[in-house]
């Protein structure tokens, strides 16, 4: 077994992705990808699971009403490829995230920003966790 070989070859990872659109298995048909919605709130749950990693958070809307948001990312493999782990978020974290929101207006969204083709976070959406911008 050539461990050294493995270690060297695994180092061949090239540059970090820069603005390469990553496509969702599910397209954006249900989401309004013309508008960036910024959600600021407290994480209540973070589900590291197929088909989509889910972030749940409580956030007040502009009228002060508490909304229970669910925001989806991609599958765990794709998220790992852009630096996420099962511990990236924890309940209680104060976060600011950019999402595209369901056309129906329910507090469901997908990480992304206006014009994004797939809404994959770290490519196209701002994420701030406890005051620090998430940049894997």
């Amino acid at each position, binding site marked *: 077994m050539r461990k050294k*070989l493995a270690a060297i070859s*695994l*180092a*061949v990872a*090239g540059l970090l992705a820069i603005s390469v659109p990553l496509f969702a*298995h599910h397209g954006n048909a249900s989401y309004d990808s013309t508008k960036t919605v910024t959600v600021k709130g407290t994480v209540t749950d973070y589900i590291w*699971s197929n088909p989509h990693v889910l972030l749940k958070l409580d956030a007040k809307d502009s009228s002060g009403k508490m909304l229970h948001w669910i925001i989806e990312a991609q599958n765990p493999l794709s998220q*790992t490829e852009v630096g996420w782990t099962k511990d990236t978020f924890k309940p209680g974290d104060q976060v600011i995230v950019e999402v595209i929101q369901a056309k129906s207006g329910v507090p469901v969204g997908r990480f992304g920003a206006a014009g994004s083709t797939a809404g994959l976070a770290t490519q196209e959406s701002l994420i701030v966790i406890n005051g620090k911008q998430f940049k894997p």
Partner: protein
Amino acid sequence: MSKRCAVSIVALVAGLMFSPVLRAQIAAPQAAGPEAKNEARKWNNIPPRKSAYTGGNPAPAPAPRRDLSGIWDAAGLDGGFQVNGANEHPALFPRKGGAAGSPLEATAGAEGGRPDETGIEHPLPYTPLGLTALKANKPSGPGVRQVPAALSNDPVDQCDPMGFPRMELFELRTFELEQTANKVIYLNEWYGNWRIIWTDGRELPKDPEPRWDGYSVGKWVDDYTFVVETVGLNSRSWLDHAGRPHSADLRVEERFHRVDHDNMELTVTIDDPKMYKEPWMGLNKFPLHLLPSDFDMPELLCSPIDMAEYNRQVADTVAPSRGKKK
């Protein structure tokens, strides 16, 4: 059978930097010590980006004869995912001047809603039966016929098997080939597919009972090209993520061409006269890159329970018409 040439791989990486940032990309960042990083790197490896494979090695070692074995990476992020449909025929309109990979290219009809594929850049030669079958399949991925996930009838969205050849025409990431005296064992990461390609000279079955992954035989047509024929495929599977249909009469040819020690090209040809007036290629010399033999492929299996939970929490809330589907 010696498969690895340390010199070639080392030459490949010569001049490339080994940065801690890249290590973090490869495995979940854990404790700071080098020991911990080595441990993390042994498991659930994520392959490098395509850019890592190009320009690094001006003189790779020559291809071994009649040998496909190894762990092969399709650089999924850079072409293997095929979420718009098989690589050679994405369900997208001609790009409005956008470069490959740019948002302009990506959104050429990707928002969906069309009844058929009229106007896509690389149209398929559907028979009338094929076109009817296409329209019955409602894909949820970005493409000209996209529907909201809750309205999709994509079998893999309910954890039906990926089937063959969809395992190569969708989410082609990493797979392993191992050769024995009478077969090639094919292990595919996405949805955990495996199949056997018999090389013992047997003929394909004449009237097979359909299987999701079919019946495959393979042979070397020269020292560097391995050709596989597959029949007996369950017509319930889709050919790709754009919902291309197939009948039970489908024959698939794969052509694995070992270019050199580190590189292989895969060509997949679809031949289904019931659905398509002529054969077409799903992949055309798609580049595959050899990974080290101790690369631990991460697992991604479809859990029906997790799928149902996702549908309940997300898909059905943004397009709550699941009851109308199919």
